[in-house]
């Protein structure tokens, strides 16, 4: 195989960006020890590098006040060599991870007290996508990138918009997001991320064999996936978070101008500032003027001003039909 600058990237060479959940509040309450978890993940990373000598891995830690690159195999000249009692990959990564955790703690302390943070998944997703974009631009030949989120802490609904944006940009650049969710309930964000980008979502039921799951389900490169039968998610939670209270809702109100989602009717859209007036101002009856905003309909315009309305719709990201959603039916 060619070496040096003119690397021969076959279609089964992967660039795997792993997003590691390092939320201390999650790990301190979770049944699986963080050290256990790390040893499984490290073994998995090592095996990825062993699968193909051109494979590349990047690890991004997802903390609760910051995210950071903690490992990049392309800058590690000899990851296989022993250092102390473990491979160099392990020691380098752990070293960086320790530094990251210390920094993250400081940042959290510097920030507002009481502001309980969930893991900054949106941040680490964005960093991963940035890294992948750089690889894309490096030249016509590059490894096939994919993202693997190993997440345990529950979704932070306040990150809904940012995460959805990251998901859609991943979809645009055809980067699949695989998700291995180890928390107790399914993660709607990661389910949607994998569904939209064509990745795999899997929640391993037995955590003491995490490595087995990782290597069986998530180690396969994109090319080989065409020939394998990998677990399929049976259902995807398509619910969205409302923009006003960050609640996860499945029926809500959508601004007809900017499509912002709200859990209750508003007089004015907080995103685009559109005023939800009554388009039919010429209707004289007092009663109709008092009508709730929820009654207004899509208006293409009235006599004197652009009609804006707010409608009650199904807010699942794949559907958006006016009340009534047949997701999963008729291939929608």
């Amino acid at each position: 195989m060619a070496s040096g600058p003119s690397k021969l990237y076959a279609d089964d060479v992967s660039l795997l960006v792993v997003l590691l959940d390092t939320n201390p509040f999650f790990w301190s309450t979770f049944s699986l020890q963080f050290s256990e978890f790390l040893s499984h993940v490290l073994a998995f990373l090592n095996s990825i590098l062993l699968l193909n000598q051109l494979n590349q891995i990047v690890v991004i830690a997802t903390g609760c006040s910051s995210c950071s690159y903690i490992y990049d195999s392309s800058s590690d000249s000899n990851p296989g060599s022993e250092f102390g009692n473990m491979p160099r990959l392990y020691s380098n990564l752990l070293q960086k991870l320790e530094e990251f955790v210390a920094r993250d703690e400081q940042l959290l302390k510097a920030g507002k007290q009481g502001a309980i943070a969930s893991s900054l998944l949106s941040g680490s997703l964005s960093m991963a996508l940035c890294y992948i974009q750089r690889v894309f631009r490096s030249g016509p030949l590059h490894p096939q990138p994919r993202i693997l989120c190993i997440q345990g802490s529950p979704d932070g609904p306040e990150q809904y918009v940012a995460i959805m944006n990251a998901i859609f940009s991943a979809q645009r650049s055809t980067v699949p997001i695989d998700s291995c969710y180890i928390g107790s309930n399914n993660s709607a964000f990661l389910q949607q991320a994998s569904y939209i980008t064509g990745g795999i979502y899997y929640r391993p039921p037995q955590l003491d064999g995490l490595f087995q799951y990782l290597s069986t389900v998530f180690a396969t490169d994109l090319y080989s996936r065409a020939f394998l039968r990998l677990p399929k998610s049976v259902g995807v939670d398509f619910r969205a978070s409302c923009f006003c209270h960050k609640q996860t809702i499945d029926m809500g109100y959508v601004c007809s101008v900017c499509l912002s989602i709200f859990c209750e009717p508003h007089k004015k859209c907080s995103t685009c500032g559109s005023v939800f007036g009554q388009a039919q101002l010429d209707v004289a009856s007092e009663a109709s003027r008092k009508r709730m905003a929820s009654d207004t309909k899509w208006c293409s315009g009235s006599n004197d001003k652009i009609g804006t309305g707010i409608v009650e719709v199904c807010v699942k990201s794949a559907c958006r039909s006016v009340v009534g959603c047949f997701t999963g039916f008729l291939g929608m």
Partner: protein
Amino acid sequence: MSTGQVIKRAKYKTSVKDPGTPGVLKMTENKFLFRPNDPSSNKKLEVEFRFIQSHKNTKEGSNKPPWLNLIHSQGHSYIFEFESFPDLHVCREFVGIALGKSGDVAKAVPTAISAEQLSTAEMELRIKLLREDSKLQKLHKELVIAGKLTESEFWATRKKLLDKDESRKLKQRVGFKNSMIFDTKPTSDGRTNQVTFNLTPEIKYQIFALKPAVHQAFLNFVPSKMTEKDFWTKYFRAEYLHRTKNAVAAAAEAAEDEELAVFLKDDEILESEARKKVRWVDPTLDMEADQGDDYTHLPDHGIFRDGGKEISEAQYQLYKRTFLQDLNRQGAVVLEGRTLDVDLEHPRTVAEALARTRQESDGDIEQERLNRISQMTLIEDLQAQDNHCFAPLCIKDPREYFDSQQANAVKTLDDSQVGMEQIKCSLPSDEAYGSLRVSISNLKAMGSRDPLVSPEIALTILNGLTKNISSTKYHLGKNSQESVLDILPSTTKEQLLDHWTSSQELLRHYWSSYPITTPNLHTKVNRLKDAISQIYSKLEEIKVSARSDLRHQVSLIVHPMQQALDAALLHYDADMRRRTARGQKSNGYV
């Protein structure tokens, strides 16, 4: 008018010249009857529509009375003269529908159509669309024929379909002829000295378009100074002189006959037009300097047809036209295309219409030229910055948005959420981070366990995964594209799909008719509500009648549909309650 018949006062004429018999015309779905006012008259008619081949009518605005001409398949025609054009339109539409129906029995022709004033063309378009798309036809039959939606409501949501077809129908316009009229060949009989030019209205139009001078002359001379025939004779005489390359003779003739001179001299109008075009050339380009590059006048250059070898004298230069000029002019006119759309039969009207289109405002030419020069010679570095007035597109102050988001975020996290497990933050951050650090250093010190995963666990995991994957294969079909629908019997599947499309359509109409502001909307909502409850009960039937092994799957599919319908019905009830409550209050006040 909603009933299936139309009765109008009309005169029946057997031919255009016939003065007509006054009487009453009655049209029903299948036939039309004419009863003359004079009962003794023998002009009684009773004809079934299926014998009528086509119909014509006079246009409003033309100077003809409102006539409707029904052409019998055996050739003769029935002409009815109505009292007014609105009467004519009503009957014409009725006939259009009736003919459409009798022509094709399978066609789903709307019955409640007569309330809407639709042109025949539009009707035909709709019928065509329905015939092309059997699904649409099915839906149409189910919703419109059953009276759940009116015809216009049904088509209102399909404007796109109608528009698309409209654009396809746009006829191709006839362009300007590409052949050179300068090539109009005279025919000579060979015996006498006569040549004959054949002139058609089309050629006349072409000449007017190509040669503004001739056009101008025609307007000036005909018919005040000479007849049209004389005019064209003169014109072709001049052409003939050109053709024979006889510049000297042309000059001589021109000296004698000043009208002829008009045709022979270079077209002044063309020249001014050319000047105008030159002005549009980049003003920084020196056209005069480039004139030296023109070598077509040199010996051994140019085009043979122009007779380049002929030594020309300056005084005759005026009477010479080159082939290139002709070709350029032809090209310019062809590109312009046919600008007028009048009957070419009368040269005078053609000439006048053309003159109207030629009128264009010249404006301040010099000023424009200066402007253009300054535009062309712009040097970017030396320009002041373009300070366009614009309002920045600002959706909202972003800071305000994100600040509010942050506050929300904190609040939500405090709230306990349904279905969302929240991190118990009983642990202070020190402790949490501490334990994390301990874990890392533990791993660093101890290294990973050996073996990482015990063989028993690995085996159970592999078995579990295999079972999981193969079970999803059984339940969801071989691939994700295959849906549960495929395992249902085809009749049930068809039924479900039909109900799905019609319920979608109904719901779309239902929700778009809120808020109810007019009595019309009110009746529509009521009608839709009834239709929705019908579908609801039909879905229920399907669920009950499904085979027991499939019942679960069917109910899974039906459930979201019923949910959507439920939402509509609930909204209807709530709205009705609100309305009645309001109604009582207002009664109390009055």
